[in-house]
């Protein structure tokens, strides 16, 4: 009758527990690593400019460098509303021809088409890759959340500057905004939709 399995020998059991504990630490570290991917991703996006993220500068800082009036860059505007948000949103129809280093202003306009007050956040993105790092905003409606009453329309300006170091190969860049509902409340949104379309929903 051999009842002392080797796992029960005290020294072996201790070694097993120690190794198991170490592996548990690795597990916890990997859980943390999952979260560490969030800032890492931000950093990679900022370095490479792939997220299309734009910079923010003060009026003073924007105008310290000279204006390069020998160069013309075309800036196009795109305005989009994320699904589920009942807003109309438009940007300037015509592209703007700008000189690097000079401050410009463009006006967007948004209206709330729904029957309730809505708070929304605009998220900017600049393409092509490599342009975003040189696109800086001084003032923008995307800096804060926007609240519109039912039926309200608001003109939303953005003041920006494209700095002189923007690579020569970039002749046209696109500034795109998407409005997302900031505090989406699925139930009230569904009710609102149901009310305005007269359809049945299961929200």
């Amino acid at each position, binding site marked *: *009758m*051999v009842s002392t399995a*080797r*796992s029960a020998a005290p020294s072996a059991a201790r070694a097993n527990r120690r*190794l*198991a504990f170490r592996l548990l630490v690795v597990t916890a570290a990997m*859980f943390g690593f999952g979260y560490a*991917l969030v800032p890492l991703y931000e950093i990679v996006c900022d370095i490479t400019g792939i997220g299309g993220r734009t910079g923010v500068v003060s009026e003073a800082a924007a105008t310290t460098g000279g204006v390069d009036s020998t160069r013309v860059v075309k800036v196009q505007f795109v305005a989009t509303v994320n699904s589920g948000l009942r807003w109309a949103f438009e940007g300037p129809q015509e592209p703007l021809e700008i000189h690097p280093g000079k401050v410009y202003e463009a006006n967007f306009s948004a209206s709330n088409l729904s029957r309730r007050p809505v708070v929304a956040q605009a998220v900017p993105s600049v393409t092509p890759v490599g342009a975003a790092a040189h696109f800086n905003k001084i003032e923008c409606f995307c800096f804060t959340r926007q609240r519109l009453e039912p039926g309200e329309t608001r003109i939303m300006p953005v003041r920006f500057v494209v700095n002189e170091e923007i690579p020569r190969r970039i002749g046209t860049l696109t500034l795109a905004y*998407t409005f*997302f509902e900031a505090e989406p409340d699925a139930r009230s949104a569904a009710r609102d939709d149901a009310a305005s379309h007269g359809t049945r929903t299961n929200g």
Partner: protein
Amino acid sequence: MSAATTHDAHHDDHHHHGPDPGVLRWVFTTNHKDIGTLYLVFSFLMLLLGGVLALGIRAELWSPGLQFVDPDFFNQLTTMHALIMVFGAIMPATVGFANWMIPMMIGAPDMALPRMNNWSFWLLPFAFALLLATFFMEGGAPAAGWTLYPPLVLQGGANLPFAIFAIHLMGISSVMGSINIIVTILNMRAPGMTLLKMPLFVWTWLITAFLLVAAMPVFAGAVTMLLTDKFFGTSFFSAAGGGDPVLFQHIFWFFGHPEVYIMILPSFGIVSQVLPTFSRKPLFGYESMVYATASIAFLSFIVWAHHMFTVGMPLAGELFFMYTTMLIAVPTGVKVFNWAATMWRGSLTFETPMLYAIAFVILFTIGGFSGLMLAIVPSDFQYHDTYFVVAHFHYVLVTGALFGIFAGVFYWLPKWTGNMYDERLGKWHFWLSTIFVNILFFPQHFLGLAGMPRRIPDYAVQFADWNMVSSIGGFGFGLTQLLFAWIVLKCCRGGKQATSEVWDGSDGLEWTLPSPAPYHTFETPPAVR
């Protein structure tokens, strides 16, 4: 072995010496063989359940138009089918093999942490009860795909917290299982069983367990972020709050690609045991197999973005992930060639496990090739999210991982039960499965190349014929699995008495034990040559 062969006589001497009578045995057991059996039975039930959901999908896709289910329920079917198969069928089945075989293969008396082992298993029924309960909730089960991409996954009904909690439980279960396996392999080998003498199945599981410990917690983090985004006001993935939904895809696939290797590596191991036995030759290139497995595991952490070539990455990123992905084909090729070389000039016989192992090598390789096509960025732009991807991963997962599991069951069943299974029925199971699975999945390549998207309940009439063929294969394959249940049941109840060696060419410690393997084995370590 004396303790092993006489344990029946001493049945009541000591509670360690035989299984407790009654069902509570299964609840409280810390015996690696019992727990292995529990895992295997559980995974088979999940295979049937996931299969029923898949047949719901194939019934709906039998012809164009909507016939049986509404689109939202269809999405619940695809999502739950995948979650159940991945976390309920394939993974627990391989853990079941690990529990049963690893201690017997390395000459250990049991797993290193037997009580934790019991816990690892018993979390699973609760996890799946939670997951399945979502079918009955307002808004139904998760329907955003097993990849749980936001924002869609955050827009479903009441299921999200339940599904996420279920995933957490599954994750805890598999991480505990893996820790146990690593500790067992590293600390409990019989004297003389050096690392490079371990059977390849043990090696593949050691590496799989490390993958699990590294990848599962990342997944747990990702779903936790979904949870806090939905309920606690964080915005990891919400653009409105400064987050980014693409970030979820990166985190998910950082886990997701290693996950696919978690599912396949144990089957690599099983096939590497089966082929030498029935070729009556040692495994060709044993060491290169070990190194190939390790390099596959390493590479699997740096290829994840091949699942997201179309999200808009810089060219350098696309190229990096394309080349690293293709690099995986090199160690994978080493394995396939070694398997072929093992059979080369062997004296082959074709019992059911061998048939499954050979089919595995051939059909898994087809899946590998379609994987290579998907790895080519410009091609993937066309193939992404089409049935071609569905065909790819079902070749590697069904005719790969699942066929490896079938090979393993037929191979070790005589050792587990003490009886030979019915070889004639085994061959029927093999041929029916192999023919139907190809009827099921091969046409999906054509559908995908012709542009049929995945995860849709309805499709253009041009896709009708191949979908019907595929559905016929699906029902055939599904029904064939009932035959599998019958063969296993029949073998448990009786049959020709199995010898210790079971197979003519078997080699390894497990074959030195009597069949059925006694409840306690290797309480005194065996001598290893």
